């Protein structure tokens, strides 16, 4: 048989394997005690792939809240409650996210904490909404998520419109950028935050000299960055997550470019510094909320997190922790863990969380979220300034 004859087969096989990679992780549900109420909390984030470390961090934050609630002994309508975590891997893939969502719905979860990315949260939110399952995303920031009009969709983080605006203004006013190059990873999150950034930067008088795109799987940016270099920007903004951010800033410096490098919340991780090494120095990133050590109970949370999981917080674990607690608070107020019964109260709950005082507006967005800018200094993220929010906090 010649190569010609097997070549179509090859193409087919490649297609099959690229479609079929991936697996799920499911927590085994333990046998139930009869006199206690079992409440299943679904959680979903990427547990495999480039963002697995952030996804695992989300799962840890959720697990910690659930362990705490079980240890504390929560009662709903006089019945002792045992919370169970059902964690699913959505692989940052919108298709997989809908499958995972259906799986959680079929498992009759009482509520969902997730997903991590806007790109997975949005398609999954429809399935939760159709089945009346309350969903709180700890980290999806795309405006579109809560703009769909679903009563079940909530988030405990400032959205891209708020964050992109702050970033755009920070780049032009505080960093004095006049010519800006913008890259994004074409995910709902990356694209959303980059578009909002562009709007705000242009409104403050900066010129967008280059608008480039990559994917959330790429690690080679040499040609894109070379093309950007030809436009001589004084600031490069990347809307995306740390698996791309780290090699990107590294390759940016390897091309001899000394421009400022700015990212949204997807860049604010210890992993970015670890993977980019010395090239990370001077990188800016934002994160909705006040710095962890300024959060009420933030330091305590981070100590306990490190004790339990033997690693530092990556990114959104405190937000997941709060999301679970908001959900539990609503269940307690409603006196029921039935989605239909506690959902109306979820929008009204005011919860003193680790990250902020959490209350939702009529869309399910976080009310008055503060946003903090961080910079890598001597190999560590340092808070530079906190903007917006109900009570602005001046960081060091």
């Amino acid at each position, binding site marked *: 048989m010649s190569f010609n004859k097997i*070549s179509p087969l090859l193409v087919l096989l490649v297609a099959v394997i690229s479609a079929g990679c991936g697996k799920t992780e499911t927590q085994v549900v333990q046998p139930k005690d009869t006199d206690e109420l079992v409440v299943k909390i679904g959680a979903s984030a990427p547990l495999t792939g480039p963002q697995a470390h952030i996804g695992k961090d989300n799962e840890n934050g959720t697990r910690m809240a659930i362990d705490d609630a079980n240890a504390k002994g929560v009662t709903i309508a006089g019945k002792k409650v045992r919370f169970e975590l059902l964690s699913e891997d959505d692989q940052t893939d919108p298709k997989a996210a809908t499958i995972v969502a259906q799986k959680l719905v079929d498992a009759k979860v009482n509520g969902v904490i997730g997903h991590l990315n806007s790109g997975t949260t949005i398609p999954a939110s429809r399935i939760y909404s159709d089945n009346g399952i309350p969903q709180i995303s700890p980290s999806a920031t795309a405006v579109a998520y809560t703009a769909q009009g679903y009563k079940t969709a909530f988030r405990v983080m400032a959205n891209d419109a708020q964050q992109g605006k702050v970033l755009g203004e920070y780049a032009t006013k505080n960093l004095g950028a006049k010519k800006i190059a913008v890259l994004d990873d074409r995910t709902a999150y990356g694209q959303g935050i980059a578009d909002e950034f562009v709007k705000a930067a242009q409104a403050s008088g900066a010129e967008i000299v280059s608008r480039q*795109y990559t994917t959330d799987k*790429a690690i080679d940016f040499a040609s894109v960055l*070379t093309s950007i270099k030809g436009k001589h920007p004084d600031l490069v903004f990347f809307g995306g997550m740390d698996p791309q951010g780290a090699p990107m800033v590294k390759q940016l410096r390897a*091309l001899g470019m000394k421009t400022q490098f700015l990212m949204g919340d997807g860049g604010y991780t210890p992993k970015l510094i670890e*993977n980019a090494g010395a090239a990370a120095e001077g990188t800016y990133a934002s994160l909705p909320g006040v710095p962890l050590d300024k959060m009420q109970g933030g330091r305590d949370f981070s100590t306990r997190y490190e004790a339990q999981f033997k690693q530092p917080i990556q990114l959104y674990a405190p937000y997941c922790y709060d999301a679970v607690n908001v959900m539990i608070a609503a269940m307690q107020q409603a006196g029921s863990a039935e989605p239909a019964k506690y959902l109306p109260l979820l929008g009204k709950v005011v919860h003193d969380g680790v990250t902020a005082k959490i209350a939702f507006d009529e869309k399910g967005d976080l009310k008055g979220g503060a946003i903090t800018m961080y910079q890598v200094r001597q190999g560590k993220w340092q808070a530079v300034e906190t903007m917006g929010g109900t009570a602005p906090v001046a960081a060091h």
Partner: protein
Amino acid sequence: MDILFQQIVNGLVQGSVYALVALGYTMVYGILGLINFAHGEVVMVGAMVALTVLQILLAAALSSVLAVLCSLMVAVAACMALGYGIERVAYRPLRNAPRLAPLITAIGVSIVLQNLAMMIWGREYHAFPMPFSNGLHELGGAIITDVQIAIVLIALLMMAGLMLLIHRSRFGRSMRAVAENPSAAALMGVDINRVISATFMLGSALAAVAGFMVSANYGIVHYYMGFMLGLKAFTAAVLGGIGNLRGAMLGGVVLGLIESLGAGYIGDLSGGFFGSNYQDVFAFFVLIAVLVFRPSGLLGERVAERA
């Protein structure tokens, strides 16, 4: 102009890596007529092993040159053992089976290796430590780093060495003989099994070096890094003419250049309609175009040439 030159430099660096990996595909195809789809994973295992050894040696405060050389050597040895093992377990029992069977075991091995790596090294991105300061050099307006210079030079050296080995040594002669006609070679006293095992080991050694190179260049290693790299190197091998050694080298470099120039200019040329996020598409566009219009590749599959 210096931007164009920079894109060419980027393409050459990327292309050298593709070429090294493509050689592994093409050598195996030349001898067995089999596409070893697990080859990309061998690159990944090489990078992972190098990472672990490098971390241990650097922690033990060994001098950085020694640490890098040792980790590279351990990675090469590990990959050669792996290549040998893959052939023994997944291909030798199926040598006379229909063509589809070894293709499927190849994909099976690829998935097994990926998942094993995920279990051993975890699923996150690891930073690949480079104990040297990576200096920048200006070359006619283009910037090239020390690591990138090393990549191009080492790739050239390895390819020259491979050509010498295949065309000048006794072992190379038996490889060419097996490629041309296995049964006749066996009758002439060539130990076919030994030659095939050695071919797998040789290809895997090149893959280990390539794995080390990409990791040092990007500073990042992860368990599925071999998948896309493997597919692209396979494309490079097909582009050059699969089974043809010079074709694999040419195909690698050409593919690197196509990708780099394509991703660099597609945004400007299409007025922003297509962006550089289509970078990976170029390789597969090339693959389809070659398969449709010139399945024998740029240099063709010259039977006497292949090894």
